[in-house]
């Protein structure tokens, strides 16, 4: 196999692009696809301060690496979920990544700060672990973005993630969720802007990016996620993709181009039904926000105690001085 761009030996084949790439041109492809996503969906301005949600996995670390390479002021936030050895290892990968590159990583430990972990939260709330985990992450990343006055929160959701969520929401016609499934959720009603710059890149590409960039990440799957519906949707979509390359891309971007507006604007961001949580002050659709209700059930700490300004937490400090990579000269052969 030869690289589609330079004809040197290829290291990866991407069937949905019907193309193979060498190391140099594959890495450029990844950065170009992120630039295209950011520009096309107006995710970020060049001067934006970005808070990157870091898990220690391939997607979040690759995202952080690319945003820094593109010249963004991007800090990381890692949330310790208290999932045994998995969380300890994940935090190690996140810390090493930041330390080796001189990047700023804030670590918030759910147990230390709020008195519970994800397995306990899930049991107390009678939710599946991924639900309690997602609720906690959304609340705490939003809170950290407000506290640190960041312009946007960036998450490592990739094309496979978005296609799988869309697949699940379509299966059950979850109209509220379908209306919210966009690569950008604008700021409003106290919520920060949320962006997903990896939506044009597949899961396999993100893992390859990390291998080729020498980024060590948490390869093992979260033990709480094993067997969940989301993974089942991904397997189903990959079975289709194997027979018909490009199906995931066409499914997701066809939805964005032709369907999503039929489900209305970003739900909950028009201010019509958003107030303020009586306990923590976060935006909430009820008197008490979902995170504080979870805390109440699990008997955790009062979230109102954590109101210190950004930069005073458990931070690995830093200086960032990257150069913005050009946005022209894209790799040929990539699906547009």
């Amino acid at each position: 196999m030869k690289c589609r761009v330079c004809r040197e030996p290829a290291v990866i084949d991407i069937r949905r692009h019907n193309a193979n790439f060498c190391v140099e041109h594959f890495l450029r492809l990844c950065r170009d696809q992120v630039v295209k996503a950011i520009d096309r969906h107006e995710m970020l301005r060049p001067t934006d301060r970005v808070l990157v949600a870091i898990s220690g996995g391939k997607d979040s670390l690759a995202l952080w690496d690319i945003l820094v390479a593109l010249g963004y002021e991007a800090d990381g936030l890692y949330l310790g979920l208290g999932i045994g050895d998995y969380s300890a290892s994940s935090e190690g990968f996140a810390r090493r990544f930041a330390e080796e590159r001189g990047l700023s990583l804030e670590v918030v430990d759910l147990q230390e700060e709020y008195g519970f972990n994800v397995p306990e939260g899930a049991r107390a709330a009678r939710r599946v672990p991924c639900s309690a985990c997602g609720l906690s992450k959304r609340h705490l990343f939003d809170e950290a973005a407000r506290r640190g006055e960041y312009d946007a929160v960036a998450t490592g959701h990739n094309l496979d993630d978005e296609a799988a969520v869309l697949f699940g929401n379509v299966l059950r016609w979850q109209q509220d969720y379908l209306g919210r499934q966009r690569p950008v959720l604008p700021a409003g009603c106290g919520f920060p802007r949320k962006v997903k710059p990896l939506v044009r890149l597949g899961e396999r590409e993100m893992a390859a990016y990390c291998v080729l960039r020498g980024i060590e990440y948490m390869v093992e799957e979260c033990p709480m996620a094993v067997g969940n519906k989301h993974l089942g949707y991904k397997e189903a979509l990959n079975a289709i993709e194997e027979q018909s390359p490009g199906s995931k891309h066409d499914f997701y971007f066809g939805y964005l181009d032709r369907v999503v507006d039929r489900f209305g604007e970003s739900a909950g961001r028009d201010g019509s039904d958003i107030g303020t949580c009586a306990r923590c002050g976060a935006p909430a659709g009820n008197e008490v926000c979902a995170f504080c209700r979870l805390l109440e059930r699990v008997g955790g700490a009062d979230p109102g105690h954590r109101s210190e300004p950004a930069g005073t937490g458990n931070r690995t400090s830093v200086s960032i001085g990257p150069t913005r990579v050009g946005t022209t000269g894209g790799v040929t052969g990539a699906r547009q």
Partner: protein
Amino acid sequence: MEVELRNPRRIMEFDGPMAVTALLTRLSLNRESVLVIRDGTLVPGDAMLADGDHVEIRSVISGGSQ
């Protein structure tokens, strides 16, 4: 060749030479779901694997909360 698989971690032995795509077929693995890494370097689907190679097959699927 020695083939290392993850989740759970295990080692299998195969005779070479064998193309990457043939190995994945033997293991009933979807090419969309894995990377094949030989001696720390990515290898594409048409690469030939030989006796003595150490090959890691790394799952790329992850997912939990959204």
